[in-house]
């Protein structure tokens, strides 16, 4: 694991995009082996400007505009990691990571295992994911379930500005490959955070809001929606807790089970398609581990099982406050 130190001190206010940019910058300053590569990450600073200024500060070798070929990018990163570098790859949009899935599944995820630990690949694959930004088709997929099902990968997704910084630093420092999923629609949300607060390793869920009635279990882009729902639920007399998983792999079962056991009711919320989604694993696992504490089945509120819709219809697809509250209402309160 590479060193994680921030030269930045004190509370600051900024967007998630800025926090990610600073995380990259600090990681590159702290560790010369950290290299960024991807499409348009150089002069343009990435289409979301997450790599803004990195080429200017570190030169085009450390922040490299590659040819337009995602398997080539990730495959090249594999070779770089074999030579001792710590590549951070940017995929431009979630659906454009698909050409790299063979490299990801057959090499990145497996290399440590297939070489009995001799060739670990400390690669971070940054993928802007999810919808809600009015993106045309192929620009709003949420593909976390593919990654979470693949042994050997860590799957991390921040939902706050502070976590964007902390989890990205921790992911880059990890000696394992990390798929780092950045919720596109949270890029421009501002918040205060302290880069020097210290970076925890990935794998810890955090209770964003305590509650006494039931818990909403969520991650990434759905966290703000869940917090809003919890606020709205007060009017209905429910006091909802909200758990932010922060990483799907490692899955913080201990923390999740503790909350679910204590409340007995849970709703899992995410925006990707429900069938075979990450919520299925979460619900199945929590049910198995907390069965006799459950007053109702663990319910899921997710995107529908349809291809991501065109921008003008996406709000019907994405789980919103009402859909979450409808599910909470079905948690068999009558008994």
């Amino acid at each position, binding site marked *: 694991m590479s060193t994680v130190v921030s030269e930045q001190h004190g509370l600051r206010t900024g967007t998630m995009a800025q926090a990610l940019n600073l995380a990259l910058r600090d990681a590159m300053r702290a560790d010369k082996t950290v290299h960024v590569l991807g499409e348009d990450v150089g002069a343009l600073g990435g289409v979301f400007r997450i790599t803004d200024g990195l080429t200017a500060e570190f030169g085009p070798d450390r922040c490299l505009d590659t040819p337009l070929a995602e398997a080539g990018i990730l495959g090249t990163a594999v070779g770089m990691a074999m030579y001792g570098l710590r590549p951070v790859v940017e995929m431009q949009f979630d659906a454009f990571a698909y050409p790299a899935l063979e490299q990801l599944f057959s090499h990145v995820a497996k290399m440590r295992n297939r070489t009995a630990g001799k060739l670990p690949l400390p690669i971070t694959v940054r993928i802007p994911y999810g919808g809600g930004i009015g993106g045309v088709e192929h620009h709003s997929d949420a593909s976390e379930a593919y990654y979470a099902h693949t042994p050997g990968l860590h799957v991390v997704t921040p939902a706050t500005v502070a976590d964007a910084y902390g989890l990205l630093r921790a992911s880059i420092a990890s000696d394992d490959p990390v798929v780092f999923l950045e919720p596109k629609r949270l890029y421009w949300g501002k918040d205060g955070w302290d880069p020097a607060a210290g970076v925890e390793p990935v794998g810890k869920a955090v209770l964003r809001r305590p509650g006494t009635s039931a818990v909403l279990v969520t991650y990434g882009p759905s966290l703000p929606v869940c917090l809003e729902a919890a606020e709205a639920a007060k009017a209905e007399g429910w006091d909802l807790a909200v758990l932010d998983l922060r990483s799907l792999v490692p899955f913080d079962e201990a923390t999740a089970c503790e909350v679910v056991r204590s409340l007995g009711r849970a709703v899992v919320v995410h925006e990707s398609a429900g*069938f075979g989604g990450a919520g299925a694993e979460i619900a199945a696992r929590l049910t198995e581990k907390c069965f006799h504490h459950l007053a109702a089945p663990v319910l899921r509120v997710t995107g529908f099982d349809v291809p991501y819709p065109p921008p003008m*219809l996406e709000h019907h697809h994405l789980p919103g406050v009402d859909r979450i509250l409808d599910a909470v209402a079905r948690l068999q309160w009558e008994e």
Partner: protein
Amino acid sequence: MTVLDHRNDPAAAGTVPGWRPGATAPRTDPAPLLPDPEPLRVLGTPAADAADPALLRELYRRLVAGRRYNQQATTLTKQGRLAVYPASTGQEACQVAAALALRPDDWLFPSYRDTLAVVARGVDPLQALTLLRGDAHTGYDPRATRTAPLCTPLATQVPHAVGLAHAARLAGDDTVALALLGDGGTSEGDFHEGLNFAAVLHAPVVFLVQNNGYAISVPLTRQSAAPTLAHKAVGYGMPGRLVDGNDALAVHAVLTEAVERARTGGGPTLVEALTYRIEAHTNADDATRYRQAEEVEAWRVHDPVRLLEDALRGRGLLDEELVADAAERAEQLAARMRAEFHTDPELDPMSLFAHVYAEPTQQLREQAGQLAAELAAEAEVHGR
């Protein structure tokens, strides 16, 4: 001296015992596959004098309309009527020539930047733009005009064009497929796999790479070290052609030849058209971050509409009637776009569940029921 210094020693040739002739190379002569060292130009050269006046006039009308189309669509983004628009301003010669080089029963496989080619092929401008307006993925019936959906995942349309062309040939039809893509798209694996399939299957397909010098911010020099992109053709065993992409007559000639070769059993061709994207990548892009104003200005001089105008003028064909007619058609197109985009589309939320499968699954019916109930509840709240 190493053994390599004997490489071209004629005494060494053919003396290896047991070398099997079947294994010798090349299997085909590479020379005719190689593109000419300079891109073909017609406008402004003596060759333009041989061009059919009717074709010149038709190209002119369509280029003027195409330029206007690009302007109007860009304006619509500023008015919030289009979510995003990747303009083909500066590339109109390629767009129009691509549409004109095909017969109605041929197929066009456009990318996201090629709405102008799609419109030039006969698709209604409103329908061509639903993707970018945000109300539907594909607003037109691809079968009606034999125009595939606008393709966003780069180069993935390339094998589609190959498969369709192959199927057409198997059916005994003399249909040709034309796939459009950008310089950046040539780096993708699907480009490679598609071209290789095309050559091996000897499919009637033409690939037009609009090399506009950039893939978003990445200049060609960071995209490829090849002499030209057209040189890639040699590695597949198909002819590579290089053309001035702002010279409508040249692009039209090269594509017509390639389409004709494909139609008559001559197999696929890779065409590289050298052009330039005058606008940013899309309205959401800031091109000043990665290119100089002088470069854009230099390309504005080599403008496809102007080059054609000059040629028409030189031939004495740029009369008032033509200019007025072209301008009027262009304005009509723009007016229709303004009118059609004036109102917001009426969308049915339940369409989310249509066309996922031929028959919705039980769980989709359940989810549709859920959304219907939500909408009903909402309507009640809003007192409708």
